[in-house]
């Protein structure tokens, strides 16, 4: 415990000052930071190569393709009913939502429509897939910024939704439930009451997270003002879904696109946020999950009776033509451009997946951010690797 003399203190300050001068004069060398392919924030195998100047990202490159499965080629050697099995695996957290635009596109070419009950149940499972998918995100995003508990809550409550999906479709993750002209099965007995209880529980979960995460000062500090996507940039990159609604673009294909699905019959609201930052993206998704639970409730009450399958030939041939159908999937706009030449399978099937475009904005977005913010931005953009690589 020696007392520090004034002279010593002065010498210390002088050294500091001279070192600071040297630092200013010296060019710091760029460092390359490899994030991934195996990083928790990448939900799979996405690699971000960031060139750093100190803590700041000078340049970022995104490397994908570690999970490329060539689905567009594979669809060309399968029949239409077989393709749904494949596309279940694109965005694996909300598989049913993948099937819908493909089936709708094929139905558009065949000029058939499923009966009203089937359309209701399709929309029902579409929204339940959204709840299961985004519900997990709500916990996962908190995990990325260092809060462990919400992730457990999310896994716990998502399981109830998955149970309901499994009870009706037979598959937790890959229902393969949608058929050309209808559905595989009708709902089992007692399912509606159970699902109503689950929706109530999900709303409680949303309230819980609204206080625990969105209302958390640490979370806000990490996310507010980070990774701002201006609306114009986002649209030019094709960023869609909650990501673009968080930039103040009031656009939701469920409301804005004519669809045989029944969103138009429901009373609901499109949520937007003006900020465009990571927090806004989280907040919009949180509201959307809650909104979806209300939509599910309405559909359960208004479920029409009747058949769930339109009459289709047993050997399905889709008339020649081209059709494009896109829907508002949990991750954003997903669409299928099907080119048919009248055969049993598609001649060409372009899969437009949401995450691919959402992630393509990253090189632009990461420039000038700081290393800890990379994680927040990646987490808040919310992508599924299968949805990028296809």
């Amino acid at each position: 415990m020696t007392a520090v003399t004034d002279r010593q203190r002065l010498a210390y300050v002088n050294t500091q000052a001279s070192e600071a001068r040297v630092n200013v004069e010296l060019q710091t060398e760029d460092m390359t930071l490899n994030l991934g392919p195996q990083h928790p924030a990448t939900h799979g195998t996405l690699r971000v190569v960031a060139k750093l100047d100190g803590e700041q990202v000078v340049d970022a490159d995104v490397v994908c393709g570690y999970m490329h499965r060539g689905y567009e080629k594979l669809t060309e050697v399968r029949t239409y009913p077989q393709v749904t099995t494949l596309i279940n695996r694109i965005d694996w957290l909300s598989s049913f939502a993948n099937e819908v635009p493909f089936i709708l596109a094929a139905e558009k070419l065949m000029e058939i429509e499923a009966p009203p009950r089937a359309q209701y149940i399709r929309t029902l499972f579409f929204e339940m897939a959204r709840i299961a998918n985004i519900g997990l995100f709500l916990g996962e995003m908190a995990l990325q910024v260092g809060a462990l508990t919400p992730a457990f809550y999310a896994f716990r409550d998502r399981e109830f939704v998955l149970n309901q999906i499994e009870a009706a479709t037979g598959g937790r993750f890959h229902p393969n439930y949608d058929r050309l002209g209808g559905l595989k099965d009708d709902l089992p007995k007692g399912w509606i009451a159970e699902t109503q209880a689950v929706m109530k529980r999900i709303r409680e979960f949303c309230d819980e997270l609204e206080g625990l995460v969105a209302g958390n000062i640490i979370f806000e500090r990490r996310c507010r003002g980070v990774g701002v996507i201006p609306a114009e940039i986002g649209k030019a990159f094709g960023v869609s879904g909650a990501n673009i609604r968080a930039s103040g673009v009031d656009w939701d294909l469920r409301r804005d696109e004519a669809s045989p699905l029944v969103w138009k019959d429901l009373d609901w609201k499109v949520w937007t946020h003006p900020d465009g930052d990571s927090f806004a993206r989280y907040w919009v998704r949180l509201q959307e999950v809650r909104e979806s639970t209300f939509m599910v409730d309405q559909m359960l009450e208004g479920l029409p009776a009747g058949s769930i399958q339109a009459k289709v030939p047993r050997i399905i041939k889709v008339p020649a033509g081209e059709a494009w159908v896109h829907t508002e999937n949990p991750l954003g706009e997903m669409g299928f451009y099907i080119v048919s030449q009248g055969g049993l399978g598609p001649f060409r099937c372009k899969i437009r997946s949401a995450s691919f475009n959402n992630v393509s904005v990253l090189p632009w977005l990461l420039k000038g951010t700081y290393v800890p913010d990379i994680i927040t931005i990646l987490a808040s953009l919310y992508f599924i690797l299968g949805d990028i690589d296809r």
Partner: protein
Amino acid sequence: MEPPPSEVSRLSSADTPTAEVEAPDEAPVDTARQALVDRLASELGDALLASVIDKGDVWVRVRPDAWHAAARACRDTLGMDYFCFLSGIDWMPSAAPNPEVADVEVEGAEGDDAEAPPEPEAEPEAAPEPAAAPAVAADGWTTGVAGGDTRFQVLLRLYSTATHLGITLKADLDDDDPRVTSIADVYGGADWHERETWEMFGFGFEGHPNLLHLYLPSEFEGFPLRKDFPLLAREVKPWPGIVDVELIPESLEAKLEAAAGGGPAAPESSEPAE
């Protein structure tokens, strides 16, 4: 780039007029989409080769040298602020990409036809040929909506988040040297899509900032989504999923018909045993 032909020479002249292939006005005219096409036509002049409006969608085929101008016009004049996707199509009739399916198509044809008669009561399937039906090019290849006269086509989908109208642009590319101007400077999102289309179809995009592999390893040879690229898994082993398209045993058929709740059991009787 080769100079554009003085006129739309190779378009199948038999059934399609050279200027604009309009949908026959059987339905109420889609004025909103027609306006899009008109404005694009005034912007591009004779570089707009064909347009089709059908089923609430619009296709426009432009000359490849006007590709960049068309994209820019869509953004600046038509208000297409949202980039949806860019991709390609290879119209080559695939040699045998799917022999199993082709076989079944032949042998299943009888069964399907026999079954067809009871169908139309439920649905008027014999509707007039939709305008979106593909055109048959001069050399016998089938090409898609809005026609086409080369093997490769590049495809661009744009959308307006304000008016909620979308447009599909197409351009024919040269068979041997398919290339077109990059539109990455018009739509930022086209960057990755062009990289993907380049590695999958081998289309060149002039002026693209970094045309590098996106999905495939950099030493990969060939262009997987071209029709002449063999899918080796299928060559080694026939697709086992073929059982899916076998006919359902007759014993089950009645049950299924009843479960579907569709029509009377008439189809079954009209179905001769295979």
